[in-house]
């Protein structure tokens, strides 16, 4: 007993160092089984239905943030935009929005998961042939295109496909099938970006 007590501090130091080095050296952990992750996601969505009476979303949070930012820079202009009016009615704070706070949670939850799996790192995701700057330009364009699609679709993959899909919402299913159709249709054109 006394021998372990005396060796413990040195042992601790040694172990924490190797653990540190091991964490730095070993690569990211493999992703979860897609069906298990899907069940987890489905249960979170179900919890949102039961607690809040609404599903998950993401693009609506973007609109709220845009409304809030525009309102702080150019209030008169922001309030004259019909599309953003819903977020700015009665002088309400557009950032006090379900989807904005859900988004903060997404950030925290993904960060925790990524850290635990050693997948959190500053990198640019791209295919092997495309340059980094070109990839960033197309990431920006893709985001802008996506925002316009989400505006017409009344939601994105989270708010429409996932949430509406599980509620058997007619428009959501039409939207979801078209998302896959649109993506497969242009996939060949943008193969250079990924493969």
């Amino acid at each position, binding site marked *: 007993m006394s021998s372990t007590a005396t060796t413990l501090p040195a042992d601790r130091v040694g172990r924490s160092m190797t653990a*540190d080095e091991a*964490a730095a050296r070993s690569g990211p952990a493999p992703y979860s089984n897609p069906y298990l992750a899907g069940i987890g996601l489905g249960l979170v969505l179900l919890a949102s239905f039961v607690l809040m009476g609404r599903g998950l979303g993401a693009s609506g949070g973007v609109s709220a943030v845009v409304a809030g930012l525009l309102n702080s820079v150019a209030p008169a202009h922001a309030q004259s935009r019909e599309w953003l009016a819903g977020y700015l009615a009665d002088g309400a704070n557009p950032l006090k929005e379900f989807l904005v706070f859900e988004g*903060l949670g997404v950030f925290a939850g993904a*960060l925790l998961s990524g850290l*635990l799996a050693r997948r959190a790192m500053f990198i640019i995701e791209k295919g092997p042939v495309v340059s980094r700057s070109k990839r960033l330009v197309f990431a920006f364009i893709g985001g802008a295109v996506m925002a316009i699609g989400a505006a017409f679709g009344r939601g994105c993959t989270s708010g429409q496909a996932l949430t509406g899909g599980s509620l058997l919402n007619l428009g959501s299913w039409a939207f979801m099938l078209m998302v896959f159709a649109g993506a497969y249709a242009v996939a060949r054109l943008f193969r250079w970006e990924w493969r």
Partner: protein
Amino acid sequence: MHEYTLARHNDLIDPLVHVWNWQIPSYLFLGGWVAGMMIIVGFFLLRGRHREETSVTGVLPAVSVALLSLGMLALFLDLEHKLYVWRLYTTFQGTSPMSWGAWILLAVYPALLAVFALRPPDVLRDLWPAFDRLSDRLAEPRMVRVIAVTNIFLGVGLGIYTGILLSALGARPLWNSGILGVLFLVSGLSSAAAFTHLVARDRGERELLATSDNVFLLVELGVIALFLIGLLSGSQAHAQAARLVLGGPFTGVFWVIVVGLGIVLPLIVQSLTTAGRLAHTALAPLLVLAGGLALRVVIVNAGQFSHWARF
């Protein structure tokens, strides 16, 4: 609440709501942060860390002086009558925390400069040989102990003062709690430990500060609980004030940004770090610092929302 907002939410009409903007929260945040750093510096001096080349005791005083000056600037910008600032120093009111604060701040600068002079940068030594003699005099063990203890005492005083400054205003029930001083002190300590963890080059210091920051964050959670319980068990106005963050308009920002992202998330990340499962990154310290500022912003703003008039 609505009727009150419409009828009385009017600049310079009783009760004065929203006359304090960003300046006061920034000042309280920077003051608390510096207070925490003074305590940490004092502690390290007592352990003789200032003799180590890589110790943060060489960095913290200069940073503290800069941050405190920034905070004073924010406070100065907030003053209605900027030209009369000197009057604070022509009087001493024993019962006024403003007066206490002004004098504590006056003592804080020399205390920090003394630590700085213990290990001045080589440039200064070459430039001014007298500086060398001064630092030799200060480096005597007895002097170091005096400097260390002075810094710790002034740090605790400054940290508590940033809270008492608010709680002395009896007209604002949310602030009217003796625990506020402790809360701001602990929060300042956690900010300081987080920042020091961020800039520390010495491995041992970094580990120690990350671990102690975890303790400070845990204590801060406990103090927040005490603060709210204390208000809830107080008068109706106090309970009403507590409800501003318990279902009221400041609930989301308080629990999500201050507690969730500013305390709990960095606590988890930093615990994984100290357990050796993650490398040290700037993430947790930056979250803690942002959370510290958010705490002051929420308490100051919510406090201006809370009052006695409706009872």
